[in-house]
């Protein structure tokens, strides 16, 4: 291992390693990438991610060996500005956007990214979900103001894609520390039921079945139906649902589900999709906390990079992805969180165990940002 560089094995947690490397300025070497696979080396979507990273930075040095099993990355400065990128169809735009959300506040000039590809699929958080949960979360850390926006211009379902997403984010010099220890009670549930290249009635069928499950908890439910037509509807048919539960203290818990991609597996009825998605939301409520499971790592990163003050956030159970993220934060920033398990008292019906995460920020300041 080089004196400043870090070495890892395997392609898992690829994005968090490269993102943390870019933010900390530490070099990283990843070896044994699918070295025992029949098709060894980096996949196209990972190569596409590296290209995106190259577009938003200035002076990054990337070396990949001939088989693609070893990657060496020396990060440059985060530049930002207007970026256009055609994302690989193997993963949805959410895969790329999750990393951009982590990097965007620390750019030299504010990022205006246009990403094209699959907007909604199974494996990654969809754009609708990131819009309704990640953006309000980042606002709590002081990343706010004009031009903080994420929108679906064209919707593209897997596998054909053809969607387009616009993301813009202002830059910040420092990140505000937060104290999110009480999520508060859920006051309303909102959602988006989307459908493209299928009957618009599909969205209504999703809404009805979702309501049948969630109405036993709360009456304030509104699910928008979003049916995109013509050029805005992408290349593949499909439908899906994103649900967001909003609490009194402004926390957002979300769940989502999309239809099986055309030609892959059994087709799904919109009624089943609605019911199952509602159950996923209940599961998320059971996990609880001030941040939902898909945004845990973004929260922990912003806490780490905050000013030198204490940040506290109550989370649900830590996901395997988040646990690995914590280990990586320790490697790159030498920050270890205080992790306390909070068991709910027996007379309260508030779901499972919660975890209180506490840390002191590294006092990261955005040296890339231009002074005006």
């Amino acid at each position: 291992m080089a004196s400043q560089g870090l070495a890892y094995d395997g392609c898992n947690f690829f994005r968090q390693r490269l993102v943390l490397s870019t933010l900390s300025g530490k070099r990283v070497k990843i070896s044994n990438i699918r070295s025992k696979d029949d098709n060894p080396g980096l996949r196209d979507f990972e190569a596409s991610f590296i290209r995106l990273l190259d577009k938003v930075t200035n002076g990054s040095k990337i070396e990949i060996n001939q088989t693609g099993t070893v990657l060496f990355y020396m990060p440059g400065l985060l530049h930002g500005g207007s970026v256009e990128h055609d994302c690989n169809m193997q993963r949805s735009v959410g895969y790329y956007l999750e990393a951009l959300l982590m990097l965007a506040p620390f750019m030299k000039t504010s990022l205006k990214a246009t990403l094209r590809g699959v907007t909604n699929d199974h494996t990654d958080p969809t754009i609708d979900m990131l819009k309704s949960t990640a953006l309000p979360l980042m606002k709590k850390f002081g990343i706010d103001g004009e031009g903080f926006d994420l929108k679906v211009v064209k919707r593209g379902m897997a596998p054909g894609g053809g969607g387009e997403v616009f993301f813009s984010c202002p830059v910040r010099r420092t990140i505000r520390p937060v104290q999110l220890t009480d999520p508060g009670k859920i006051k309303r549930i909102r959602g988006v039921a989307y459908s493209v290249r299928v009957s618009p009635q599909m969205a209504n069928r999703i809404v009805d079945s979702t309501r049948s499950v969630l109405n036993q908890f709360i009456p304030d439910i509104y699910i928008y139906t979003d049916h995109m037509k013509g050029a805005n509807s992408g290349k593949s048919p499909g439908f899906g649902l994103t649900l967001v539960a909003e609490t009194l203290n402004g926390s957002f818990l979300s769940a989502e589900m999309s239809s099986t991609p055309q030609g892959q597996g059994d087709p799904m009825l919109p009624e089943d999709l609605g019911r199952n998605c509602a159950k996923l939301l209940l599961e998320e409520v059971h996990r609880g906390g001030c941040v939902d499971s898909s945004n845990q790592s973004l929260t922990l990163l912003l806490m780490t990079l905050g000013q030198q003050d204490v940040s506290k956030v109550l989370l649900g159970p830590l996901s395997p992805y988040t646990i690995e993220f914590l280990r990586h934060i320790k490697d790159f920033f030498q920050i270890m969180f205080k992790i306390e398990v909070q068991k709910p008292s027996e007379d309260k019906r508030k779901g499972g165990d919660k975890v209180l995460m506490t840390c002191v920020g590294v006092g990261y300041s955005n040296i890339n940002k231009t002074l005006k």
Partner: protein
Amino acid sequence: GDSGHCSEEDEEESDDGEEESEGESGEDDVAADAAMKEKIASEEEEEEEEEEEEEEVEEEEGGLKWKEGLQQKASDAFLRQQQAAPNLRKRVYGSVVEVDDSEDEEQELGGLFRVSRPQNSKKFQANAVDSSRFSPDASHNWELEEMLNSIRDCFVTGKWDESQDAA
């Protein structure tokens, strides 16, 4: 002259006093030790007697003794396990199970070919899918009323703490 003599006498007197006091304390110690020994001896005897009594009781009741207080034992064991539950911080920052290739090297066929086995058993999947999605707990069945009831107070329609008010 006088003062010096006086001081010597004082010293002698004080010395004597000290010796006397030491002697007294020594005697006291001896006496105390003796008393303690007696006490301990008597306690030991008592304990021995008690143990004998207990043994007798056990012998009388035979093999059915273990069934007594099963519930208490079970709850004690449960609490012990709860307390010994691995510290989350240790699990996160402690030892990471890393993939080592040493195992594969041992499994050589004819010294030339290696047997490559899928690493399904490994906790840490180095080449798994890189996704932030957290799959739900399969043991939760959201059809059951019991499960639904476990989260009722997360909603504004649920029961409120006395300190809080819905208004």
